[in-house]
């Protein structure tokens, strides 16, 4: 049993790579890619040194293959994760998808992703770079008619997430949940998009089969030259899992943008009240989050915020970017219904960035980020971060060099400390990039020792080698500090790392 996944992986690779030999190669298209990753690292203990009893291993491989024949495409993803000889717990899957595409109909059977509108009602998506894989197993069909598209789907969700060096299906106790839904989008009115949708979720821990959760809503969008406006509304009617009792929720999301050559402006406003459907660490819907650094408050449960982004490039050699974003809980005190009243828990973010190219060879970047987190990283009540950053790169032609410096000045309640990092890279086009990085912390507050570690220095070296156009090998040796890492409102605590990582990506 122990080697079952490896045997399956090797068989899978061998069979698929042999397919073109078995079927007439002219009609069959086989494509694929592979990402193999191996880590050897020390257990997270202070001052640990490598011995044969305190190191751990991590091996993962994700092989994606697709074979297309006429209007039918078959896709397979084989994933294996083998964490450590000492932990000994493995995880792996073989996902398959069959697609039939012939205008005006598309039918998908197997594993797929689905987002309706901006995700207020349903958002099962793959964020591969953040290792957040939210998929559905079932069937989905689209039909196009009169400038409109009708989508109907049914499937069981699987929300796989990587956290603290462990892959875990976050909804594994309720894997029998069932999602069904329909979405109708129409472009009948020129430059205008209208959509309506309904999603029904039956959960394993609902009290009775009749105690399901339903989400419904719609959106309207106008796209007129450089202007774009979008409004989405959703309602939730549901039952409290396990205990019973009714839940009502609602959500509003609006965005507007102006896009001119050399100028881009985006504004967003959101108000989410009990619209979240999911559990600890997972959601079946995921409304938009304006925070660029990805931090969320509670992913649709009680959030209100806005985002503003201005990108200006008055001349080709300079680009400036300003972001002002906020996401907080509601202010439940008093009866005020003001759009601009916020609660005390949440995030405020301001980013200013300037990129200049004084000549074709040089790029100079300077930025400053300010982030205020209130009751996000408990037990700290308020954490303020101010991050100045400078980066200079010069392209000599046969090779290029790049250096950067960043300082993260942190004030966490009564404790102040800072992290600073300097890195240097040298690279040769189509060949390699070698990066050396050194980061240190001036002191470690007690709460941080308990939460992460007492380490204060993180030296790191990375070599990225282009073996061919289709193969890249990355070797990283050294230490990474870990901490809270977020993307699109989804956060995880990343363990500190001391060891070696080898990553091979291939496209074939």
């Amino acid at each position, binding site marked *: 049993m122990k080697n079952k996944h490896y045997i399956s992986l090797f068989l899978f690779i061998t069979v698929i790579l042999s397919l073109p030999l078995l079927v007439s190669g002219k009609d069959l298209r086989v*494509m694929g890619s592979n990402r193999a990753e191996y880590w050897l690292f020390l257990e997270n203990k202070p001052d640990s040194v490598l011995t044969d009893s305190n190191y751990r291993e991590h091996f993962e491989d994700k092989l994606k293959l697709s074979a297309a024949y006429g209007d039918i495409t078959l896709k397979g993803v084989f994933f294996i994760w083998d964490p450590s000889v000492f932990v000994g717990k493995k995880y792996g899957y073989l996902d398959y998808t069959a697609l039939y595409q012939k205008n005006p109909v598309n039918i998908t059977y197997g594993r797929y992703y689905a987002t309706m509108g901006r995700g207020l009602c349903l958002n099962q998506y793959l964020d591969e770079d953040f290792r957040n894989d939210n998929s559905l197993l079932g069937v989905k069909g689209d039909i196009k008619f009169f400038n409109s598209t009708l989508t109907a789907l049914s499937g069981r969700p699987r929300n796989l997430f990587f956290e603290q060096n462990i892959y875990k299906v976050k909804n594994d106790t309720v894997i029998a949940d069932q999602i069904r839904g329909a979405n109708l989008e129409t472009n009948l009115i020129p430059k205008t998009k209208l959509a309506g949708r309904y999603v029904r979720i039956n959960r394993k821990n609902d009290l009775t089969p009749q105690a399901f959760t339903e989400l419904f809503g719609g959106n309207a969008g106008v796209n007129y030259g450089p202007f774009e406006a979008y409004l989405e509304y959703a309602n939730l009617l549901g039952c409290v899992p396990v205990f019973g009792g009714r839940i009502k929720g609602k959500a509003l999301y609006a965005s507007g943008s102006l896009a001119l050559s050399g100028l881009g402006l985006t504004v967003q406003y959101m108000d989410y009240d009990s619209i979240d459907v999911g559990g600890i660490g997972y959601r079946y819907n995921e409304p938009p989050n304006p925070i660029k650094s990805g931090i969320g408050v509670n992913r649709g449960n009680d959030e209100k915020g806005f985002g503003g982004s201005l990108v200006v490039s008055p001349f080709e050699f300079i680009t400036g970017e300003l972001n002002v974003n906020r996401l907080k809980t509601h202010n439940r005190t008093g009866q005020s219904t003001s759009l601009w009243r916020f609660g005390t828990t949440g995030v405020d973010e301001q980013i200013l960035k300037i990129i200049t190219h004084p000549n074709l060879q040089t790029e100079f970047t300077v930025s400053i980020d300010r982030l205020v987190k209130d009751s996000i990283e408990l037990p700290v009540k308020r954490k303020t971060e101010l991050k100045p950053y400078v980066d200079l790169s010069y392209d000599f032609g046969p090779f290029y060099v790049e250096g950067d410096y960043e300082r993260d000045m942190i004030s966490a309640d009564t404790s102040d400390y800072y992290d600073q990092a300097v890195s240097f890279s040298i690279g040769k086009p189509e060949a390699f990039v070698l990066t050396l990085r050194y980061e240190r912390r001036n002191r470690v507050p007690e709460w941080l020792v308990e939460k992460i570690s007492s380490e204060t220095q993180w030296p790191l070296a990375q070599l990225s080698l*282009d073996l061919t156009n289709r193969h890249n090998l990355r070797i990283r040796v050294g230490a990474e500090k870990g901490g809270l890492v977020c993307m699109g409102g989804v956060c995880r605590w990343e363990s500190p790392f001391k060891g070696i990582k080898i990553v091979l990506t291939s496209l074939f």
Partner: protein
Amino acid sequence: MKKLVALLFVAVLMVHAAETEVVDAPDFSLQDVDGNPVILDSLLKDGPVFMSFWAIWCKQCIKELDALLPYYDEFNSLGVNLLALSVDKARSIPQVKPFAKSHRWKYVVVLDPDNIMRDLYNVQAMPSSFIINQDKKIVFVHQGYKPGDEKKIIDTMRELFGKGEEP
């Protein structure tokens, strides 16, 4: 050690499968940021296709597209359709068009929030670039970006689709 052996085995298999003969490009039908349909077969009637997968958060992707921009007119005049394929999720869609415009990109910016293209073309690393000739064959693939890598893409396109003038 067993895992390292497994990694090496996978590496050997993958490198063996490397530089395989050209394959047919998977069909796609998506929308650009203005809501216009972008269909591979229609594009190929006008000329070959270059497409690069990018996202707002991907620094190297933006650098690659910025670096290729001075060559846009040269390749556009040769009939090449140049696509910037955004894999940004639904939450980032409002920012894609303003971002591309503010960078003065002339590429057709296509949206793929549901990973349809990323899945079809089996993209594992960002950025990834593909060149598809008018026979619908993928004739060039490139993963990742570092300053200077654009020369390989430019040389390949000049070699495949005709010599243009230096910008």
